[in-house]
C-alpha cells in the first residue's frame, strides 16, 4: 500500500466534486469545502474496494490529515 497511490485514489473522488481540488499528505481533508457525508461514503466505498478495509464514521472522525487516514487504513489492513 503506497501513500502516493492512496492520495491519488482520494484525489480522484474529491475532484468529482471540485475539479481543482488537490490533496497532499498533510491536507486536512475534512476541512475542505467539498467534504460532506456523501463524499465520506464514496471515500469509504473506494477504500473498501481497493484495500479491503471497511471504515465507519468514528474511524473517519479520528483522522485529520490524508496521512492520518492512510495510516489508519494501513493499520487496519495489517491487523
Amino acid at each position, binding site marked *: 500500500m503506497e501513500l502516493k497511490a492512496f492520495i491519488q485514489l482520494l484525489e480522484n473522488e474529491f475532484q468529482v*466534486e471540485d475539479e481543482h481540488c488537490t490533496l497532499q499528505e498533510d491536507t486536512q481533508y475534512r476541512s475542505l469545502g467539498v467534504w460532506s457525508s*456523501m463524499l465520506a*461514503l*464514496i471515500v*469509504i*466505498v473506494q477504500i473498501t474496494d481497493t484495500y479491503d478495509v*471497511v*471504515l*465507519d464514521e468514528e474511524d473517519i472522525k479520528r483522522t485529520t490529515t490524508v496521512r492520518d487516514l492512510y495510516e489508519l487504513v494501513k493499520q487496519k489492513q495489517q491487523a
Partner: protein
Amino acid sequence: MDYPYLSDKEKQFISKSIGINKRRIAPDGITASDLCFEAAQKLVSELAWSKDEINILVFVSQTPDYITPNTASVLQHRLGISQQCLAFDVNLGCSAYPYGLSIVAGLLQNMKGGKGLLLVGDKSSQLVSEEDKSAALLFSDAGSATALEYDDQAPNMWFDLCTDGSGAESLMVKGGAGRHPFHSASLDKTEESPGIIRSELNLILKGLDIFKFSVLKVPPSIRNILEAASVSKENVDYFVFHQANQLINKTISKKLGIDSDKVPQTLGSFGNSSSASIPVTLSSELHTTLSRGKHRLILAGFGVGLSWGTAIIETDSLADIPLIEL
C-alpha cells in the same frame, strides 16, 4: 427530484451513487396494512385459495396500524380469514422478508400442513422527517403478500438469521414508545446538524454505519448458507438483496464475485421500500421468470436492529402476478 433541502450535487449523488431516481409515497390515510391487504386480496384470488384454508397470518412491519392490538388480527378479520388462524405481528424492517419466510415455513413444518400468508410492508414515509436530508429522499412505501403451503416433497429452505443489537441506534425512532413515551414536545423539531432537522418521532439513519455493517456482515452470511446447503454460487439463479443503496449492493456482489446479471435492482424506480424491498424486487423484476419452471434464489435482508437474514429458496412455477400500483 423537487426537494429544497439538497443541492443539485447532492441530488446527483442520490441518483448516480445511491441509485434512487423515483420513490412511491402512500397518501395520508393509507397504512402499510392497507397496502398488504390489497396485495393479499389479489394473491388469494389469483391462487383461488379459500380463506377458510388459511391458518397462519404473519404481518412483519415497523409501521403497524396501532400500538395495540396487533395489525395481523385486524387483517385476519378484514380479509375474512377463518378464526382458526394464528395471527401475530413481527417488528422488523430491512431483514423482514427472510425472517418472515422462516417463521411461516417453520410454523407450517411444525403443523405438517396448512396454508400461510406472510404480509410484509412499511409506510416509511410516516417515520422520516422531510427536513432530514440524510433520509428524506431514500424511502418508499410498499406492502407485499406471500402465500406458502406445506408440501412434504418440497426442497429444503435454508436460513441464516442474525442480530447485533449493539448497533440499534444506527437506525432508530427514539420517541413515542415505552422508553421515551410521547410527550408535549415530541413533535418539536431540532436541527441536529446542517440539513438534518427532525423530531424524536422521526427516523435516525446513520448511513456510514449501515454501509460498514452491511458489507461486513452480509457476504459471510451468504457464504455460510451456501456452505450449509452445499450449493455453489454458480448454481444460484438470482441473488435478491434488500434495496437500500446501490453502493452497498455493488460492494457485496463484488466481495462475493457475483455477476451483476444475477442481482436484480429496483432502487432506481422504487427507492428503499424497507421491509418490502425484496418482494417488491421479486414482483417487479422476476415475476414472469419465476412463473416458468424451477429457480434457486438467495434472498438477503439487512438493516434496522441491527438484524440480517439470508435465505436459500427454490421456487417452482410461481403464480405470475405483477406488481400492483394503487
